[in-house]
């Protein structure tokens, strides 16, 4: 498939390079600035629900504090979204703005009123006025670090050979929380790679089960391309073989973009930006790159 050669931009046709640069690092070519990922359109079904929820709760402004910093948010808005709007970084691996939250990676946890909550699934309410939220504290960061370590040992993450290296959120969080050697034992699981689609590849070794693809990627008729399979530690992402074969290149592209790690890779496409100059190589996650 030529992933390695394409990774370093050797075999690419000029127009592909252009296209690639466009999605991967829109401002890269012009000036070296923090790279903001292209906003991904969300399917109608999901946004509809979000809109409903929003309408119900729209109106008042909520004033609260995160680690002492004054913040302003809207009633009904998730604490995670509100924090980002206020320039406060709360890590997350499964959250996307305007998509119903999964609440599954559990890394966005914060402490409010003495209780630990997931910031992505906890909305701001009138009760949150003047609330002090703890976020960047040694206690919380220790749990976050443990979650990152758990994810590293649970799957097979070999960063040096991964196409997403430098753009991978899990890798970036590993650096952020100064993970050296995970405190947990590696599981080295046997996981299947799906490569039967002409447009995309699913490498389950790198999957962290954030469910973004499950929630967002649908075919033209609204049917799921990705879904979960099994449960517990046998949980995996299942891909509808028939739908995957006829998947349009545009949807495949979107699937790769929303994947926080290197589990979904668009086929026959290289990466214009070399390792060392990629998103998180330039600015660590949480500094400039808030989501």
């Amino acid at each position, binding site marked *: 498939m030529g992933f390695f050669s394409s990774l370093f931009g050797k075999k690419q046709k000029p127009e592909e390079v252009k296209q690639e640069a466009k999605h991967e690092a829109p401002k890269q070519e012009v000036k070296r600035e923090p790279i903001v990922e292209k906003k991904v359109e969300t399917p109608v079904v999901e946004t509809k629900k979000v809109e409903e929820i929003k309408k119900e709760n729209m109106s008042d402004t909520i004033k609260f504090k995160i680690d002492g910093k004054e913040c302003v948010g809207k009633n009904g808005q998730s604490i995670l979204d509100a924090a980002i709007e206020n320039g406060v970084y709360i890590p997350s691996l499964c959250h996307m703005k305007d998509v119903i939250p999964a609440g599954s990676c559990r890394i966005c946890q914060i402490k409010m009123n003495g209780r630990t909550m997931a910031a992505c699934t906890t909305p701001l309410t009138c009760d949150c006025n003047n609330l002090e939220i703890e976020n960047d504290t040694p206690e919380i960061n220790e749990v976050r670090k443990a979650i990152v370590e758990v994810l590293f040992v649970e799957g097979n993450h070999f960063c040096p050979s991964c196409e997403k290296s430098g753009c991978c959120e899990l890798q970036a969080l590993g650096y952020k929380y100064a993970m050296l050697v995970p405190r947990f034992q590696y599981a080295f699981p046997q996981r299947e790679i799906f490569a039967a689609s002409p447009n995309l590849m699913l490498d389950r070794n790198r999957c962290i089960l954030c469910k973004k693809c499950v929630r967002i990627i649908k075919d033209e008729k609204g049917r*799921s391309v990705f879904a979960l*399979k099994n449960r517990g530690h046998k949980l995996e992402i299942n891909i509808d073989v028939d739908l995957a074969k006829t998947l349009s290149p545009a949807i495949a592209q979107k699937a790769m973009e929303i994947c926080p790690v290197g589990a979904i890779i668009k086929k026959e496409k290289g990466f214009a930006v070399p390792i060392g100059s990629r998103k998180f190589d330039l600015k660590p996650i949480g500094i400039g790159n808030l989501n």
Partner: protein
Amino acid sequence: MKATLQTIIEKHQKDATRLMDILLDIQAEHGSVNDEAIALVASQLGISKVDVEQTRSFYHFFTKESAGKYTVYMNDSVVANMKGKAEVVKAFEKEANCKLGSVSADGLIGLFNTACIGMSDQEPAALINGKVFTNLTPAKVKEIVAGFKADKCVKEMITEYGDGQNSSELIKSMVKNNLMKKGAVTFSEYKTGTALRKVVEMNADQIVAEVKTSGIRGRGGAGFPTGLKWDFCRKEAEPVKYVMCNADEGEPGTFKDRVILTEVPALVFEGMTVAGYTIGAKQGILYLRHEYKYLVKYLDKVLEDLRTQNLLGKNIAGKQGFDFDIRIQLGAGAYVCGEESALIESCEGKRGEPRNRPPFPVQKGYMNKPTVINNVETLAHITKIIEKGGAWYKGIGTKESAGTKLLSISGDCEKPGVYEIEWGMTIQQMLDMVGAKDVQAVQVAGPSGTCINPKQFGRAIAYEDLATGGAMTIIGNQRNLLKDVVHNYMDFFVDESCGSCVPCRALSVLMKERLEKVINGHATKNEVNELVEWGSFMKLANRCGLGQTASNPIITTIQNFREKYDALTKDTDYVSEFNMETAVAASCAVVGRKPNLEH
């Protein structure tokens, strides 16, 4: 095959929210839900195959391939193992000529493990083609397998029936009630319909007030005040609402709901109808765990009788516009579905994954409509509270824990069974009551609860001290606590995690592996301390009650039985797991020589 599948799909109106029923029917009809069936269901329902497969692969009792003409699901609970499960399995393996976890070569017999089937007072037990077999012995197994080979119907193999309704025409099961103590509420005299006839003269405010006065709290274990729950739901503006009864008692060691549903199901259905009247719901659903499928025909008949008596259906008890009916939804084998929002997901035909909160079920529950979900025992008590008044109920039990509680007591004792006690009884009193001597530990509230030591036997069974959904597993001094009990419980949690939250999915496995290291004598004291830290991550970071308590078997035994961990661990930096003999065993076997370890 295609024709029968088509009939099943049409029977459920090609409704994707009834996917559970469709798959249950297919499994029952064909002995599996294979890929061909998945493809047909997907195309008929207009969803993708992976969306059907995600539900199939979540539940234990859906199988991709045939699980044998006769499928034996051996209960693998702690108590089953205490009572000789291993011998029974050995006998099955020998007679049926297949290994546990597989189907015999001729496809006749499948032999599998399953989590607690709610028969802890009559172990070892197994489900064979949905029928319950209790008190199994190797001799009985020989007879059973002979029956398989003679092509007998499983029903014919049951010759002795249990007590009470267990022997009635529609159940005909060998299950025993073992109802050892009847109390003032659940198992006291009652005439069906009394509460409903009283309730139609009351308004919702009065009913909620009565329930609040009674002080009743959820009997499933969490102990949320029932009156408050109903009040929240009642105040939701949405016109369509639902009442659900959680009969998915999956906590290993619990079996009291089975006895309620066998002996006094009308009490539960009446409680559901009272709830419907109060919150303004027209539809109720009883979510019944798959292990209790043998009760369905009987329960359907009870519902039918209630309709005949005008206690269900239209204009109930003569009250114009009071319409309410109940349907039974079967589960398919998933402990996590006992969590109320996971139960709702399952009812909607999906994977039983707990939902994020808010919104709470009382705001957006089944089909996103306000839903009240109560435990079987809670709803039975509601009927009695309406009949006799909240103040009467409040007068039973302790100040903070009103009423009676059904305990499912099993393990090392003379008289296992169901006991209706008043809250406030101490563990020691309970042990004396059931004839338990030489007790090492009591597992209170099942694996997700607490394992207590003899110094704590003076503690009281009550929400304010030892809260419990009712499971009490007694562990005698002859048991190896870590190996026989804690390890089995961790296995259970690893199998039953839905997998959604990272810590629950992965840390439960890592904790179990670390426990194995301790049991095998390869761990350091510091590695035990690390387990405490990992347990705190589980508690802090997981979403649902299952995940938050999945480390409890380890954490509570480290708290209360630290000496057992200390005896197995060393106070050094590192204990080598390397063993030369094991390391060279495989290669020695290949070349056919004995290892020379003298070098």
